């Protein structure tokens, strides 16, 4: 039996989540791993928006901010369980993406870039300025998810790092599975068609505005859930999660790895999440090297890291 690319992707991800811990020299790496999975979750949303549909967003961190602050605020003010708070955050993000997306998705290229940028900046500004609610730039605490305690009662005793590693890993697997299913669905095909040419897609009967809006809403939910996971994992959150640099990080991770495929995006996320950890060894040169890596990869491997590496490997076989 020949495996489809969807199953290959899922198997590789599963193996990655399951096997990596055997190579971890210390518990600290569980934390880094969990961070990679959480980032990769948001980046999977970018793959849907940018990789499938060809639309740019420079403000998706705004949705991550909504997801994160939902987990911080809803349990305190509405008495919701943190998990339900994450769902509420995703709902708010979806509604907001639907409202914002309808007018701005008519814009193209850089114009869409500045509109989404504006949205992201508005969200981060509210989080920074409404001190009495969000604690302002100092951030605020997030309640415990409580799942780890439940697992412990069932006899599965995980350290905090281990729990979040596996929990985020499973979330990423589910997110990737959904994204891959979407790719092969009628919506996925419509998105790829309008990526190629909107007019041509319209001619063959694709409702371009509606399909773009769908991709925008779905990717917003991905970003929101990723923000929630980040908040619950760190038990603390600051408005930086909604900042412009976080939006740029998401897009860069997706494009650096190869925005066309989920696996490429996860790879890019791993590289860019690990890079700062490695670069701290370079101290003051950190920013310099980060900028250099971003430029070099995009100039010499425009398709992204993973597709370029795979092509090299295939070339060597042939």
């Amino acid at each position, binding site marked *: 039996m020949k495996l489809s690319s969807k199953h290959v992707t899922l198997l590789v991800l599963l193996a990655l989540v399951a096997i990596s811990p055997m190579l971890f020299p210390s518990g600290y790496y569980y934390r880094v791993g969990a961070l990679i999975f959480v980032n990769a979750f948001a980046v999977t949303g970018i793959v849907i928006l940018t990789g499938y549909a060809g639309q740019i967003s420079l403000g998706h961190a705004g949705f991550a901010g909504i997801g994160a602050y939902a987990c911080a605020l809803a349990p305190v003010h509405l008495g919701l369980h943190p998990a339900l708070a994450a769902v509420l955050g995703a709902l708010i993000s979806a509604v907001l993406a639907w409202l914002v997306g309808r007018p701005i998705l008519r814009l193209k290229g850089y114009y869409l870039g500045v509109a989404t940028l504006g949205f992201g900046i508005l969200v981060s500004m509210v989080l920074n300025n409404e001190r009495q609610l969000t604690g302002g730039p100092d951030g605020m605490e997030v309640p415990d998810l409580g799942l780890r305690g439940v697992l412990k009662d069932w006899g599965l005793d995980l350290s905090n790092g281990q729990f979040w590693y596996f929990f985020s890993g499973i979330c990423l697997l589910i997110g990737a599975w959904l994204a891959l299913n979407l790719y092969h669905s009628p919506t996925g095909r419509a998105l790829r068609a309008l990526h190629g040419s909107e007019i041509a897609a319209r001619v063959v009967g694709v409702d371009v505005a509606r399909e773009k809006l769908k991709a925008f809403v779905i990717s917003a939910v991905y970003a929101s859930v990723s923000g929630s996971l980040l908040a619950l994992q760190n038990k603390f959150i600051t408005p930086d999660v909604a900042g412009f640099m976080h939006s740029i990080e998401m897009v860069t991770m997706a494009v650096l790895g190869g925005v066309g495929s989920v696996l490429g995006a996860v790879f890019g996320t791993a590289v860019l999440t690990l890079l700062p950890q490695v670069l701290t060894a370079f101290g003051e040169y950190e920013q310099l090297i980060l900028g250099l890596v*971003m430029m070099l990869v995009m100039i010499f491997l425009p398709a992204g890291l993973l597709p370029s590496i795979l092509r090299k490997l295939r070339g060597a076989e042939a």
Partner: protein
Amino acid sequence: MSELLQFLFSGVTVGAVYALVALGFTIIYNASDVVNFAQGEFVMLGGMLTFAGSAAGLPLLLAAVIAILATAAMGVLMNKLAIEPARGAPVVSLIIITIGASIFIRGGTQLIFGKQIHTYPSISGDTPIRIMGATILPQSLWVILGAVLVFIGLWLFFTRTLLGRAVLATSNNRLAAQLVGINTNFVMTLSFALSAGIGALAGVLISPITMTSYDVGLALALKGFAAAMLGGMGNPKGALVGGLLLGLMEALTAGYLSSQYKDAAAFIIILAVLFFLPQGLFGRKSTERV
């Protein structure tokens, strides 16, 4: 009345800087279809290098000229090393390349000049000029004068000189421009030098008022980008109007509504404008070819 006038003065000053940054965006965009997110770093370099030069004992004017030339050279380098090799890459890749360049320049500046905030003396003193109950700094007048002169200079350059027309031809149709003998690579280099130089001039002029440090570039780049889009990307008139409008909106919001949300008003109005005019105020309507 005097209060309103005061807000207008500060709005026009900030707006003139945004306009200069937006003009820089426009020039590069016209020549190469690239939106250069490192544009704000040019402004930062203008201020920082002028400070470094004057701290090293150079006369202020000489330091400023050297800073502008050095930044222009930086723009040329960036074009040759990062933009030309990536010709034809998708918009997202180009955004990442220029943001990478911006992080690189910021990191380098921090490494060489440290994280301190710097400033240097104004051109004609710090005694505020009183006009109808409001005050304006002499340096603000210099900033406004700078923006106006740059705009007029660019207008003359693009309409009255052969070289300027070559740039316009390149922006209209690169291939056709090549066919009639225009050296489009030179046009690109020139555009980056010009745009970096204009950015540096903005930095030189505004730093005595706002002070400068290695990290002021990003915010300026975002505002300049927004101003350029507001006016309609690729249109110098749009850049000037967009920049001034953005500065005025910020100043009025900060004055009458809330200084915390001054950036919000600007972006809300941009979203509203794009909603009704998807190409910005003065943008060309574009069509897609199948």
